[in-house]
C-alpha cells in the first residue's frame, strides 16, 4: 500500500481498523516493560530516586518536538503536495502534541524542584518549551475558530511551518545559552553519556510513548475523517431541506396563479 493509496479516506479508515488493535497491544506491552525497567533501575549517585522522573519526562519532551515535526511534514503535505489526509493528520496531532508538551513541562518542573531548588526558571530551554506549548494551544484555537476545515488547513499549515523554527531553538538552547537544564546526554556527538542501567529503560519508554503517539494519532485521524463525513452529510441534508422548501413554495405560487387565472 503506497502513500497515494492512503489518500483515499475509506482505504485509510480500513487500514486503521485493521492495525489499531495491534498497535494498542504493542504499546501496552512496551509500556509495561518500560515501567518495570524504570522501577528496577538503580538510584543515581547524585539525584537518588528522582532519576526515575527522567523515564517519563524525557520521552514526553522528545515527543513534544517530534509531534511538531510530524505536523510540519503534514503542513508541507497540505501546501505543496495537497495530500487529502495531510490536514487531517495535522489537526489530529495538535491536541496530542499539546498533552505531551504539558507533561514534559510539569514533570520537568517536579524534577527541578528537588534537584535545582526551583519549580521554574525563565531560562532558554524551559521558556522555549513553554512557547511550544502555547503554539500548540494557538493551533488548536485556530482549527476550532474556522468552520471550513480546508480554509483552516492553509492558515494552520503556515503557522505550523513558522513555528517549526522553535524546534532547533529548543534542541540547541542548552548549548547556545547558559541554562539550568543539563545538555543533551543521549542524542549527541560521541554517543550517550548515560549509563546502560538508565539508558535502556529510557529507550524502551521512549519507544513505548512513540507507539502510544502513533496509536492515538491514527485513532484521532479516523475521528477527524468521520467528523468531516458528518459535516458533509449535514450540509447535504440542509441543502435538500432548502431545495424542497423552495420547490414547495414554487408549486404553491404556481397553484395560486392558476387559481387567479381561473378566476
Amino acid at each position, binding site marked *: 500500500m503506497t502513500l497515494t493509496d492512503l489518500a483515499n479516506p*475509506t482505504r485509510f479508515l*480500513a487500514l486503521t481498523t485493521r492495525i489499531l488493535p495491534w498497535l494498542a497491544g504493542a504499546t501496552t506491552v512496551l509500556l509495561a516493560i518500560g515501567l518495570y525497567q524504570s*522501577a528496577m533501575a538503580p538510584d543515581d549517585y547524585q539525584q537518588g530516586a528522582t532519576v526515575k*522522573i527522567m523515564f517519563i519526562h524525557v520521552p514526553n519532551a522528545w515527543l513534544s518536538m517530534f509531534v511538531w515535526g510530524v505536523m510540519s511534514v503534514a503542513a508541507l503535505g497540505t501546501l505543496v503536495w495537497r495530500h487529502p489526509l495531510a490536514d487531517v493528520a495535522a489537526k489530529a496531532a495538535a*491536541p496530542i502534541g499539546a498533552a505531551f508538551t504539558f507533561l514534559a513541562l510539569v514533570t520537568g518542573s517536579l524534577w527541578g524542584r528537588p534537584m535545582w531548588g526551583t519549580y521554574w526558571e525563565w531560562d532558554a530551554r524551559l521558556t522555549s518549551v513553554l512557547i511550544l506549548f502555547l503554539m500548540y494551544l494557538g493551533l488548536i484555537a485556530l482549527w476550532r475558530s474556522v468552520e471550513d476545515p480546508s480554509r483552516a488547513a492553509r492558515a494552520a499549515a503556515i503557522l505550523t511551518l513558522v513555528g517549526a523554527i522553535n524546534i532547533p531553538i529548543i534542541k540547541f538552547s542548552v548549548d547556545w545559552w547558559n541554562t539550568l537544564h543539563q545538555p543533551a546526554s543521549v542524542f549527541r556527538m560521541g554517543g550517550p553519556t548515560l549509563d546502560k542501567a538508565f539508558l535502556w529503560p529510557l529507550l524502551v519508554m521512549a519507544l513505548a510513548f512513540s507507539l502510544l503517539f502513533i496509536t492515538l494519532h491514527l485513532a484521532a485521524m479516523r*475521528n477527524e475523517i468521520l467528523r468531516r*463525513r458528518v459535516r458533509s*452529510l449535514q450540509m*447535504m*441534508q440542509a441543502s435538500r431541506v432548502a431545495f424542497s422548501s423552495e420547490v414547495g413554495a414554487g408549486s404553491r405560487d404556481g397553484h395560486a396563479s392558476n387559481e387567479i387565472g381561473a378566476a
Partner: protein
Amino acid sequence: MSLGPYASFIVTSYALVAAVVVLLIVWIIADYRRQQARLQELEASGVTRRSGRSTVDVR
C-alpha cells in the same frame, strides 16, 4: 523499592502522566463513538453518501 525523601515528586509525576494519557484515550474513544452515532442518525434520516455506501462503512 524505596523512593527516598522526594517520593511525592516521583509519584505525582507518574500519576499525572497516567491521568493525562488515560484522559487522551477516553477523549478519543468518546469522540469516535459520537461521530459514529451522528453518522448513523444521518443515515437513518435518509441522507447517504454520493457513493451510496454506508456512512459508517470503513471496509
